């Protein structure tokens, strides 16, 4: 028998489950140990410990009306609910609730692609639709449209956008919440609200205009527990004509500063509209595209010292750049050539000694073989650059020649830092020292990781901690993670997203004005969800009756 929701007696719980079954059918209410165990987070940092967050049951509706009815029943019996879309948010939480004992509302059966509008490049989907599903629906329709997908293609466009997920293609499409247009939300009282023009009955522009009349509410339904999102519109990209990826290489440590500045200029001017990728062949940092580890003993010895001039000299002699940046551009064939020529000139005039490698130009649509070929040479990236969903990213943690004894998953510490070379240097120093102090493994070369530049005006560090399923080690890693959150906050950096295990810590780091942000969220929560039934604790927002528990 799975656990009960805290404070709920067996009689009420049983009555609620019975009414859930009347709503969705007995086949779609899961109560047995083995069925409820499928709602554990496979990458839980608590796995197997007393603190692991577990569901009490799960219910899987097929329609918005069923979701409404589930919410009404939950209010009647004060049952905490935890909605999931596809439940694949591994690394930031799977299908397990934040508050143990919640009933998971599994929206996977709501898996309809409701609309694909090729003329205006929009779509409308339900939460159970995966990126694979949306991609397949577009292919079946023959529409010349691209989705923008994150690394794992089995996730939900709605779930990913609501958790501020990111992708790899063109400019603003990479920001999945930023490129949504219109939401349908079941509120905690069971009513249905539509945002944007969807507020007008029979709206003809729900997926075409992002604002409504009055306050723009969409944001309060992301990373929150203010409702259950049952539909969401997204803007898609018209398939571009061509793509090119070129690399700029620089050879001095401090060249990173103008390298990032010029990259920002190109991004902010839409001269380069793809995702720039920083690397450091000389430091062999994460993100390098310059090949595998160097076994030259002189190089290895230099990496152990703090003799930067000697390392720079070695790099110049061996033609190993200190930093690289991949510049990706999508658009008409002739136009992207001109854009790259301009980008190259900007780098050359700003960074003496910069060198350039011009990559292959691809034209779309790609053949399947081209997509495969492009993917084979990479661990991350590859087909996601072209909005083609896949699961290749799991090679960063699965059994591979360079990781013959994999663990059981990972989760990310991911602070947002300023998009400048100076900030990257500072964050590298701070987190390298922190990793040493906390006993966490890190690359030994002096840079913890290079940031990802998904967002156009900020940078994001991604530091993975392993799920070992060793209770002691996982506990130590959780403590270390909490310290990293504090250290980041001391330097003015907050995380963009975090697993349930750390959502209180991250929300507490956003403490400006005596935690005004958290307190305002709590005010909204108490007003719209007085029984505290929707995802208690999500993003550190607890209902009144559970605060301080």
């Amino acid at each position, binding site marked *: 028998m799975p656990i009960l929701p805290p404070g709920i007696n067996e009689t009420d719980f049983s009555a609620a489950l019975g009414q859930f079954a009347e709503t969705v059918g007995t086949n779609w209410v899961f109560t047995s140990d083995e069925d409820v*165990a499928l709602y554990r987070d496979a990458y839980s940092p608590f796995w197997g410990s007393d603190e692991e967050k577990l569901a009490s049951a799960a219910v899987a509706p097929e329609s918005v009306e069923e979701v409404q009815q589930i919410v009404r029943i939950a209010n009647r019996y004060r049952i905490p609910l935890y909605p999931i879309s596809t*439940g694949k948010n591994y690394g930031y939480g799977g299908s397990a609730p934040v508050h143990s004992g919640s009933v998971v509302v599994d929206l996977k*059966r709501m898996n309809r692609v409701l609309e694909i509008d090729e003329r205006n490049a929009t779509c409308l989907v339900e939460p*159970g639709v995966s990126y694979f599903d949306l991609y397949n629906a577009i292919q079946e329709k023959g529409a010349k449209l691209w989705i923008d997908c994150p690394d794992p293609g089995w996730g939900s466009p709605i779930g990913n956008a609501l958790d501020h997920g990111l992708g790899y293609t063109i400019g603003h499409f990479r920001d999945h919440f930023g490129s949504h247009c219109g939401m349908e939300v079941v509120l905690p009282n069971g009513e249905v609200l539509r945002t944007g023009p969807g507020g007008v009955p029979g709206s003809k522009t729900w997926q075409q205009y992002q604002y409504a009349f009055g306050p723009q509410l969409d944001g309060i339904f992301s990373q929150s527990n203010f409702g259950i999102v049952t539909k969401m519109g997204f803007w898609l990209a018209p398939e571009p004509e061509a793509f090119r990826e070129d690399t700029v290489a620089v050879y001095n440590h401090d060249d990173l500063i103008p390298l990032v500045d010029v990259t920002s200029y190109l991004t902010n001017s839409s001269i380069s509209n793809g995702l720039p990728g920083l690397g450091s062949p000389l430091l062999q940092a994460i993100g390098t595209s310059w090949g595998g580890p160097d076994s030259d003993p002189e190089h290895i010895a230099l990496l152990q010292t703090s003799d930067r001039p000697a390392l720079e000299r070695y790099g110049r002699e061996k033609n190993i750049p200190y930093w690289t940046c991949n510049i990706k551009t999508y658009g008409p064939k002739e136009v992207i050539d001109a854009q790259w020529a301009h980008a190259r000139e900007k780098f050359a005039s700003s960074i003496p000694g910069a060198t350039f490698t011009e990559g292959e130009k691809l034209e779309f649509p790609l053949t399947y073989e081209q997509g495969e070929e492009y993917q*084979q040479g990479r661990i991350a990236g590859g087909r996601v650059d072209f909005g083609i969903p*896949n*699961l290749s990213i799991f090679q960063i943690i699965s059994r591979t020649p360079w990781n013959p004894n994999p663990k059981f998953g990972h989760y990310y510490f991911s602070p947002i830092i300023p998009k400048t070379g100076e900030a990257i240097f500072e964050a590298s120093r701070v987190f390298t020292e922190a990793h040493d102090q906390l006993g966490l493994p890190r690359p030994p070369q002096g840079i913890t990781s290079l940031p990802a530049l998904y967002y156009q005006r900020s940078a994001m560090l991604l530091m993975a901690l392993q799920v070992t399923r060793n209770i002691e080690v996982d506990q130590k890693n959780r403590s270390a993670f909490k310290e990293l959150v504090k250290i980041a906050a001391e330097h003015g950096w907050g995380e963009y997203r975090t697993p349930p295990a750390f959502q209180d810590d991250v929300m507490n780091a956003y403490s400006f004005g005596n935690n005004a942000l958290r307190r305002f969220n709590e005010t909204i929560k108490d007003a719209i969800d007085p029984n505290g039934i929707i995802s208690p604790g999500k993003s550190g927002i607890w209902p009144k009756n559970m605060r301080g528990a």
Partner: protein
Amino acid sequence: MVRRIAGISVSLSLLVMGQALAQDIERGREVFQYWCAPCHDDGEARPGTVALQILYSGEKPALLEERTDLLPEYTKTIVRTGISIMPFYRKTEISDADLDALAAYLAP
């Protein structure tokens, strides 16, 4: 006469069973393509295939579809419990009926 009718009846039953099995296996192939192939298809960028190449060092095929030792109960257990970094699948993703079909498809 009775025996003859019974014989026809048995033949029809076998035919129906055969068709049902073929349908199951076709459904199993579809389930494999949708849920398993992104990791277990042929190719260097398939994490499951690469992992099994290393794990088995050629003693067994790395491709699940080429294996001849995947007993249905084993397939069903792995799908519902996960292994290594592969998570388990909920019944809203792979139903029990689809799991039976997948197990039949991969069975020797």
